[in-house]
């Protein structure tokens, strides 16, 4: 399996005149789980969004590499699996239709076998043909895991992975994390103790406020 590396250099972000963080440096690689900790509003989600190239930083750089080959920002979406509570799928489509559309837009063949496997893992298989509109917030959160993993990404970012989940759902999430950590680079942004306990290394965003 190829090696995925993420290099973060002197990252700095302001919202207006308010400093979110500065001087964030890290070198992370596949095979490990990295945690981003901090209180509510501390900038955890901002940091993961910058890593995922969804928003820009004010200073510093992020380099994604697969086997020492730099991945361009245009191609990053092929390597990235992202989950967060503020990620929404299309309500007017069923879970399966949503994922078929996403695979087609990515330009990859819809992997029905993996889809069924993931839907089983998150306990949504029986509801795969229901419109997402009818899903509860916990079910939507479970479906986001299928969205994040179906294209078999190398960098997986889970922002608050266990929010809205019951204990059974949380257990399924930790099982998924255990499987994915063997080959991929996992980043978990959370302030939940049990989420951070599965991490090999934790970056506390509060340490980068001055």
């Amino acid at each position, binding site marked *: 399996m190829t090696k995925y590396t993420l290099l973060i250099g002197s990252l700095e972000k302001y919202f207006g005149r308010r400093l979110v963080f500065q001087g964030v440096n890290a070198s992370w690689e596949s095979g490990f789980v990295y945690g981003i900790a901090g209180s509510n509003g501390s900038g955890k989600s901002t940091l993961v969004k910058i890593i*995922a*190239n*969804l*928003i*820009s930083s004010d200073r510093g750089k992020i380099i994604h590499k697969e086997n020492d080959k730099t991945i361009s920002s*245009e*191609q990053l*979406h092929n390597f*990235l699996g*992202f989950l967060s509570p*503020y*990620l*929404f*799928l*299309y*309500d*007017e*489509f069923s879970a399966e239709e949503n994922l078929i*559309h*996403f695979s*087609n*837009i*990515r*330009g990859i063949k819809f992997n029905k076998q993996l889809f069924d496997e993931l839907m089983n893992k998150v306990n949504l298989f029986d509801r795969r043909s229901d419109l997402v509109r009818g899903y509860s917030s916990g079910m939507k959160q479970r479906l986001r895991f299928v*969205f994040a993993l179906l294209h078999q990404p190398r960098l997986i970012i889970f922002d608050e992975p266990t929010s809205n989940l019951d204990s059974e759902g949380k257990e399924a999430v930790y099982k998924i994390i255990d499987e994915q950590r063997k080959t991929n680079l996992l980043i978990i942004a959370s302030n939940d103790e049990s989420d951070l306990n599965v991490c090999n290394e934790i970056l506390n965003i509060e340490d980068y406020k001055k």
Partner: protein
Amino acid sequence: MKSYSLFKKDWLSELRTRYAVNALAMFILVTISVILFSIGSEKISEYLTGGLLWIVIFFSAMSGLSRAFVSEEERNTTMTLQLIAAPSTIFSGKLIFNLLLVFLMNFAITILFIVLFPSFALKNFLLFFISFVFGNIGIAVSSTIIAAIISKASSKGTLYPVLSFPILLPLILTLLELTKFAMDGNSVEASFVEIAVLICYDVIMLTASYLLFDFIWKE
């Protein structure tokens, strides 16, 4: 192919939600009815019907074409799209969707004008057809990029026509001129300058849109 898949997703979504199609159909119906009522039994000139045609097209485009990006923003699915495709794929997919909408909408408006306004008589149909095709492309490209710009703003409804007016004005003026030529029976060769302006407008808007979209799309 990826852009086509995005277009397909948007089209299927549109068939289920009817966000844009209903707005457009209602707008066209209401506007043409109001024009008919206000004219009454008066006989209006050919040129005036040509002008009215492009006015209806302009305002119909304002009422429906912004949905391409605004609906993503309203449903909070913008980030989902950012995570699955490159910006150029997104823009192309949305542009194909708007092209289809513009062609369907303008075809319906033109047919209604031909049927309901006896003074809307075209002597050179080929010239009108050429202006119609390139005009529609221009309207679709401009509306798509403006929709992307305004989708993150808080007062989208006001901003869209305000931004569109100066951008679409040269296009609409050229189209008015060409429609007048088509009504007069001018040849395509004699209208070459106006057709060239129309094609240049489309090329410039398309190039500028692809260059700009990367910056607009990323927060």
